[in-house]
Structure formats: C-alpha cells, structure tokens
C-alpha cells in the first residue's frame, strides 16, 4: 500500500482529514509526520507527501515562508527530484511557492508568490481580506500533465471551498509565459459552467489568469489554494450546489460516497502506480 506523509507544522490545519479520510478513501495509507521529529530521514521512506492547509507558524512574516525554511523542506526537495509526488494545499501551496518548489522555472529560486487577496472588478480592488466560501475550479492542463490531474480530463469542473487571506498567485510576465508554454497551470477558477474570468467573484482573490493551482515543470509537485480534501466525499458538498447530493439525501452509503475532487486523489494513486 502506498504511504503518504502528511507534514504537520505548528499551526497546520485539516491535516487529520488528509490522514484519516482523504488518502484512505483511495486505498492509500497516510501518516502524520510532525515537523519536530528527530528521525527526519524516515521521511524518505514515504511514496508521496502532502502539505496541508492552515496557518503554519501563525503566518508570521508571510504565509508559508517560515515553514519553507524548515529542514524537512530540503528533504522534500530531494525526494521531489526523484519524481515523488508532493501536494501542497492552501498553506501547503504557499509553503511550496516560498520554498521555490513551484513553479521551478529557474531551479529552486522563488519566482512566484501568494500575495494578499485583492479581488478585482473593472480594474478596481473590490475584495480584500480572508475569504471562506465555495467556488469552482476547472482543470486547465491536458490530462496527465501532473499527478493531480493524472485521471482528470481537461475542462473538468470541481466545486471546492477556499479559505485563505493570501491566495493571489503572482509571478512575473516571463515566468507566467514559461508556465503557460509548459502547461503548468493545472487548475483555474471558473463559474459553474466552466467559464473563466479574471473578475471577482469568479476569480475570488485576484489571481493572475485566475490561477487556482500550478505544478512544477516535471508535474510531480502541485500547489493548490482551494481545498480538494474538503470536497472528497459527497456529504461535504453544500446541498444547494450539488444535484448528486440532493439525489443522495437520506441515503447514508451514497452520502459517504465520492465527492467531486475524489478524482484528484485517485490521480495521485494512479500516478504512483504508473511510476512503479
């Protein structure tokens, strides 16, 4: 059974969902790996890694930057070199960006940032601060471009919750161009029909090109600001946005069944099987 290390820093959040529900739902075994363990080399024995959401080190200085300097991140960088998958969600996404593991256009140099939210309409900032709500994202890369969309068709739409104050993807025009050419923009915010707009509220935080998730060049490190682990089971989805849940209402087994983002976690497993 594939083993996933879920890295816990002080201030991590939703790590227990990843450990107890998310990865086990696709037949993988996940373990919590605390940042202060002495046997850090044990980390190398895992097949895959997940950096959960939350507020590592209370977001001090800048979200994700303190955790990005942790010695565990050096090990993750080395394991990523071997092709092992690393998934960063929300704060994990910020950590990967601050560690330079995404987008990795210039080796591990920091060339992307998750800036404070600034949702825009007609060029004016209309929304700042913490946003916690359900939005839609769609796969904008070809199927199999990264481990996170290994089984996901281009254009597939996922309702997902976001919960962050610093989630606005920013990079230079040059880095953006490289990412577009390489197909590293994996997920993009969209409306329910899949239409992408850079305007608030479709693009809730003002991200460049409405980016919601990116990968490194190789496709084995993926950083996503929305929370796919919170849409992995049907019961997690708000009733008013899911016809599937409305149909399943009152049926325990169906309610415990797969949510829309299950495909992303099934993709992790499929990628590992292919790597074997």
């Amino acid at each position, binding site marked *: 059974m594939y083993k996933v290390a879920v890295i816990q820093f002080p201030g991590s959040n939703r790590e227990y969902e990843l450990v107890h529900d998310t990865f086990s739902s696709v037949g993988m075994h996940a373990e919590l790996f605390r940042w202060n363990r002495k046997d850090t080399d044990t980390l190398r024995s895992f097949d895959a890694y997940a950096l959960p959401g939350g507020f590592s080190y209370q977001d001090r200085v800048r979200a994700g930057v303190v955790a990005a300097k942790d010695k565990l991140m050096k090990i993750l960088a080395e394991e990523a070199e071997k092709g092992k998958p690393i998934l960063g969600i929300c704060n994990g996404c910020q950590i990967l960006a601050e560690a330079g593991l995404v987008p990795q256009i210039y080796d591990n140099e920091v*060339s992307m940032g998750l800036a404070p939210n600034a949702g825009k309409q007609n060029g004016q900032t209309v929304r700042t601060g913490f946003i916690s709500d359900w939005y839609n994202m769609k796969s904008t890369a070809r199927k199999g471009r990264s481990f996170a969309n290994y089984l996901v068709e281009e254009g597939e739409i996922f309702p997902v919750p976001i919960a962050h104050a610093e989630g606005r993807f920013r990079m230079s025009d040059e880095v953006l161009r490289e990412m577009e050419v390489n197909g590293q923009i994996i997920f993009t915010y969209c409306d329910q029909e899949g239409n992408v707009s850079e305007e608030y509220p479709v693009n809730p935080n003002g991200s460049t090109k409405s980016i919601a998730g990116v990968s490194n060049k190789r496709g084995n490190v993926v950083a996503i600001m929305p929370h796919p682990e919170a849409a992995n089971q049907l019961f997690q989805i708000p009733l008013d946005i899911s016809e599937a849940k409305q149909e399943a209402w009152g049926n325990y087994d169906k309610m415990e069944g797969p949510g829309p983002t299950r495909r992303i976690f099934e993709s992790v497993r499929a990628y590992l099987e292919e790597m074997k």
Partner: protein
Amino acid sequence: MITLYRKLKIPDPEAVTARNTLKDYSLRRLDKMEEFSIDADDDVLKSAVSYLYNPNEHFYLVNTGNGTRGNEKAFDVNYDARIRVETEEDPMTITVLNVLRGRYGHGSKIRNVRRKVVWGVVFQEGETDIYGKADEMARTLFANPVFQRYEVSV
C-alpha cells in the same frame, strides 16, 4: 505629510519567530515595527494618527517633519541596519484608506497612506558586511521578490 511608527509593547512574536528562523545570522537584536506615511490635510492628521495606534497595545512615534512626539524612548535604538518591506496592494493600507475616507468622513482630505514593515537589526559585535547580510536576510525571509519591495539602510 507625517510618518507614524508603531510597535507592540509586548515582545513581537513575529520578530521572535523571524529571529529563530534566521538563527544562522549573528543577531543580537531583531525588532519589528510598522511605518505609516500619511499624506493628508493638517486638520485630519490627528484623527488619522489616533486611528492607527492603540496606546494600550502600541508604542508610537509621530514625525511631522518639524519634530517628533510620542514614546520616543521606545524607539531610541541604534540599529545596524533597517530593512523596510512594502507589499503591493497591501490589504491593511486599503482598509485604512477606506476607513479614514469613508467611515471617518475625511474623504479627499486623505490623499494617500502607505505602510512599510520595518525590521531593525543589531548584529553581534565584529560582524562585517552589514549591508550584505541585511540584504541577504531580506531576500531570504522578509520579502517575496514577486509582490514585495524592500530597501536596506545601514
């Protein structure tokens, strides 16, 4: 135009964490403060300043160009280097502007507000290349090169 400096009266937890993160540098002291530059008509400056600090929480210092007032002793530190970091579209600046113009009713009398986070650094004695070290600290920790600008003064 006035400049307001504020810092916590208690030890700043961000400065403590930053110092721990920068443990490879020979730091004797690392302080964090905020610098607000307020461009406004004279008759609303007092109101703007009072909004930006809480006397129970902060030490503050106001520089009007003709002198200073406030908790001068708390800011009387001889730093080897200061690293000033400004964030693009800083949500706090946007909020402060909106509150002063809208809720406080000062409207166009508030022309602009800018905020920088200032890190005051004192190195251990004998440290050489203070500018280079401070610049490296800024690049390593204090400023993301994509959406934050920084300047180092020694």
